């Protein structure tokens, strides 16, 4: 019972429920792993968070635009202050070896396949 109340009060959980924009992604798979690109324009490096938990990869970013003081928006297409997207990883992917690059609003993630599942060339010996 007490644990449940603690979960509700958890700020990480409440942030998860707030409305967010869905960033567009490209996902490309090759023999050794998966490469994911996501567009998160307006997110500085220190406001991007990536988590792998329970086989789920979550990408979250908060927008920080430099707006002049007292600015009033007259037309907004990017109308929420954050992006969020969650993907379920499959077992053959090695969640511990995810590498990420983030440059000018584009995130590039590389998720390799577990080493023993990577393709190996089987040598055929001719007797």
């Amino acid at each position, binding site marked *: 019972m007490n644990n449940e109340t603690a979960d509700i009060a958890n700020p990480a959980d409440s942030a998860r429920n707030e*409305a967010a924009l869905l960033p*567009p*992604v*490209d*996902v*490309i*798979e*090759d*023999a050794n792993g*998966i490469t994911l*690109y996501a*567009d*998160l*324009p*307006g*997110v*500085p490096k220190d406001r991007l968070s990536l988590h792998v938990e329970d086989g789920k990869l979550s990408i979250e970013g908060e927008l*920080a*635009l*430099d*707006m*002049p*003081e*007292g*600015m*009033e*928006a*007259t*037309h*907004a*297409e*990017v*109308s*929420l202050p954050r992006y969020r997207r969650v993907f379920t990883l499959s077992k053959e992917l090695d969640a511990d070896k995810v590498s990420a690059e983030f*440059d*000018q*609003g*584009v995130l590039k993630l590389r998720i390799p396949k577990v080493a023993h599942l990577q393709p190996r060339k089987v040598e055929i010996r001719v007797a």
Partner: protein
Amino acid sequence: MMHRSPFPRDLYAELAHLQREMQQAFEVSPSIRGQARGYPAMNVGGTPRSVDIYAFVPGIDPATLDVQIEKGVLTVAGERRVADIPEKATVHIDERAVGSFRRVVTLPDDIDPNAVEAKYRDGVLHIGIARKEAAQPRRITIQ
């Protein structure tokens, strides 16, 4: 007397209806112009001193962007390339915009087209245009 439909309900129509209801209840209200907004997404705002335009163009070389102001119309154009797909790779999701783009914004009358500043940071192009001096609010002293 209870009205009974002679036909069983169409489950898919019910689901579609439910989905619409859910969207109304939880999502941000959609724009009257629909969701097809073109690329790049833009936000426009202003203060008494300036008009500020934000174009969301991630991962682009700012030198390749073409920004012009002509007859009170601002044009942002460019081309977006994405990384080549290696051979023998499978594309599972392909959502990001690719190719040339062009968007146009009509500016208010009181802007000064000679006082423009453009900055590119974190994948967002911010164009700040000052309003003409004469148009800025002035405090009138009462004698």
